[in-house]
């Protein structure tokens, strides 16, 4: 369990993380999502006590990370930036970390096997590929067999086999009841692994939700219907959460009397059945889905830090008015 309360980080007058509140629960993979520069890494570093928040606090399993008597057994972390001396072998790197907690050599060998580094364990890290480096990071995160795992962009730069390995690992960790927080700037990756999503942009919390909910709130799954009898159709689709958007003249090719409806809350099959039962003419019946990627883009668009067409990036976080103007 990880909690953040009003977590804020400022560097001078630049606010990198602003007033973040969230909870990461055990037994699920929580995706920590945001464009590059959104403040994901800074937040993770604050969770681990590497950066001190300007305001607010965070706890891991009930207390701040630094106050745990055996932090490696509470939280395992894979940081984005390499955190290994390239002159040391994987074994020596892990053994040095293990010594701080009295973790035995047996466990070091176990995590080396788990990460698939057995053959390379006594080679210097200098010669490792990016994927092997990530595997070493994962091995280090598992040293203390922690109940909570924090991984910063674990699939970055990995080959397909490595990506698959990370995905399987994340899912199995959550299945074991662990708390898993994994950051990414790729929605598609999160869609495959995460159950829950925390989306941030420019250091602010944009959404704390499930994958399905995110799609729905981004105006996802709807059905496009073209019919000359919109009122009749509306009258017969009476479920409580059904919504309609009516556009009088849909497309140049449509019949002139037709109207386009955008219906949310029921699926195309149901609309088709209702129309057939009540003899309502339909010209078109098309399910429309917003991809997760699109939902993510819509959500974070106002908060993307590095948009090329913008000449002057405000140093202070954009106010609501700024966002509105820029969007």
């Amino acid at each position, binding site marked *: *369990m990880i909690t953040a309360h009003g977590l804020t980080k400022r560097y001078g007058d630049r606010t990198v993380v602003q007033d973040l509140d969230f909870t990461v629960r*055990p*037994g699920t993979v929580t995706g920590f999502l945001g464009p590059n520069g959104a403040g994901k890494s800074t937040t993770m*570093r604050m969770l*681990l*006590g*590497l*950066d*001190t928040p300007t305001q607010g606090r965070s706890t891991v*399993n*009930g207390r701040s*990370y*630094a106050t*745990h*008597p*055996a*932090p*490696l*057994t509470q939280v395992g*972390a894979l*940081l984005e*930036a*390499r*955190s*290994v*001396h*390239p*002159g*040391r*072998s994987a074994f*020596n*790197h892990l*053994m*040095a*970390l*293990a*010594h*701080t*907690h*009295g*973790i035995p050599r047996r466990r070091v060998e176990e995590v080396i096997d788990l990460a698939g580094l057995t053959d390379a364990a006594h080679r210097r890290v200098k010669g490792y590929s990016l994927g092997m480096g990530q595997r070493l990071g994962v091995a*280090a995160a598992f040293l*203390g*067999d922690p*109940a909570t795992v924090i991984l910063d962009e674990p699939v970055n730069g990995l080959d397909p086999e490595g990506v698959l390995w990370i995905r399987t690992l994340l899912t199995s960790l959550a299945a*074991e*009841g*662990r*708390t898993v927080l994994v950051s990414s700037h790729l929605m598609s990756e999160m869609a495959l692994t995460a159950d829950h999503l925390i989306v941030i942009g420019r250091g602010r919390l944009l959404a704390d939700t499930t994958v399905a909910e995110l799609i729905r709130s981004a105006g996802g799954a709807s059905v496009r219907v073209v019919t000359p009898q919109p009122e009749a159709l509306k009258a017969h689709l009476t479920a409580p959460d059904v919504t309609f958007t009516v556009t009088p003249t849909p497309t140049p090719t449509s019949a002139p009397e037709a109207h386009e409806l955008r219906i949310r809350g029921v699926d195309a099959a149901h609309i088709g059945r209702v129309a057939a039962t009540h003899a309502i003419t339909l010209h078109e019946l098309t399910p429309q889905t917003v991809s997760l990627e699109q939902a993510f883009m819509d959500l974070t668009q106002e908060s993307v830090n590095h948009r090329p067409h913008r000449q002057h990036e405000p140093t202070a976080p954009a106010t609501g008015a700024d966002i509105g103007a820029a969007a």
Partner: protein
Amino acid sequence: MTTTHPAASPPYRITPPRILRAEWHKLRSLRSTWVTVISAVVMVLGVGLIMGATYTSGGGDSDVDTVVLSLYGSMLAQIFLVVLGILMTAGEYATGMIRSSLTAVPTRLPVLWAKAVVFAATVFTVMLATSVVTFAAAQALLHDTDQAASFTDPGILRALLGNAAALTLMGLLALGLGALLRSVPGAIGAFIGGVMILPEILGMLPYDAVERAIMYFPTQAAGALGSATPIPGTVSPGPALFALSLWAGTTLAAAALALKRRDV
């Protein structure tokens, strides 16, 4: 809160001896450690043997202290040990290792103390042994000259201990500088400029007060520690040890403050 951990966790816990053990493992698992320490030993021993072999009674070096003469290579050894100290701290920032170290020990300060203790114990042991062996070897060559001396002569053992202590404290000062500046070239530059060159420049100033103060500067104090007989213009070994400890201690304290306060 209730743990969701699949199995009962073993009693793993951070303790000071364990952090020491971790730092010792880190120190000995790097090639650079072996290179710098062996180079330091070779410098002292090699220069000592050359001094012994080439010495002639009544020559230009007759007025040089016997221990200083035998351990002349310590000046060169110091450079290697300073680099080792800086690599131990600033090196972790250069490679990113510091993030792993401080994630494992998030209270931070014990990591710095452990580094200082491991460095001091290693360097003092190695350099004391090197000093004793080098002195004995040089004396084997100097026995029939006016530099002949034995371990039992007054001041000899104290100077051999003092030489090892001086090298250790200089190295600790550098280790502290490395932790403070977080950059290997930066710390080496600061050491050369601040510790080695600055006193020389200040020494040119025509003020007695400055001259007296310089006697307590690291290089001068280190020189006083490694001599069996008093060197003109230096303080006696007791105050020299105190001054050098204070330099190293103050630098480490500043490094500790920075480590506690700054983001990693």
